[in-house]
């Protein structure tokens, strides 16, 4: 398994864990609490801090065990695969944005019982998980 593959696989796992934590926190809130900007921003700040800390730890551990490859740039095949992964990620994000805008327009939390702001954050996390997983799979396939 190449260094890039390990990195993307672990990024997918970490983002998936963060996504579940965020979902759990949002679904445990009442609809009124979900619309509260103070609560939403504190949840977002918590998510940002968790993401940065976990990714820094992951990259440090990976670099410590793979010092030879840690500083190497992606080669042409890895760059081409990263581009494919990003296009899948962008498609998922676009779906999430369209869904959140639709929910905002009809002025109700449809089709998911969640405020549009949280739907956007979840779409961003989900797009990152799917993009990283697709990239890791394509790297594995060769």
């Amino acid at each position, binding site marked *: 398994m*190449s260094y890039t593959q390990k990195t993307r696989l672990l990024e997918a796992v970490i983002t998936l864990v963060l996504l579940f934590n965020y979902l759990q926190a949002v679904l445990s809130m009442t609809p009124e609490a979900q619309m509260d900007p103070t609560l939403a921003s504190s949840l977002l700040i918590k998510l940002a801090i968790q993401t940065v800390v976990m990714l820094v730890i992951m990259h440090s551990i990976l670099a410590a065990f793979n010092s030879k490859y840690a500083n190497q740039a992606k080669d042409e095949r890895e760059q081409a695969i990263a581009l494919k992964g990003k296009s899948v990620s962008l498609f998922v994000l676009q779906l999430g944005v369209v869904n959140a805008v639709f929910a905002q327009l009809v002025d109700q939390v449809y089709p998911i019982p969640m405020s549009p702001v949280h739907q956007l954050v979840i779409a961003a996390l989900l797009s990152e998980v799917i993009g990283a997983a697709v990239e890791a799979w394509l790297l594995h*396939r*060769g």
Partner: protein
Amino acid sequence: MAKLAIRNTIRTQRFHHNEMTQQQLADQVGVTRQTIAAIEAARYSPSLEVAFKIAAVFGQPLENIFQYEA
């Protein structure tokens, strides 16, 4: 997965160059071992730059390493 129309003799060339490993070739070309494995198995077509680098490592013209099968 469908194989590409570009065939190559990298495996043979590695054998004739003192059984060079994929990792040794990858280090000389400046790509990952997985990329060399994908090129060798005809699952990935390299750029012209990488193709020329591979040919240069073996000291052969490009057409001896890569052949197009229409």
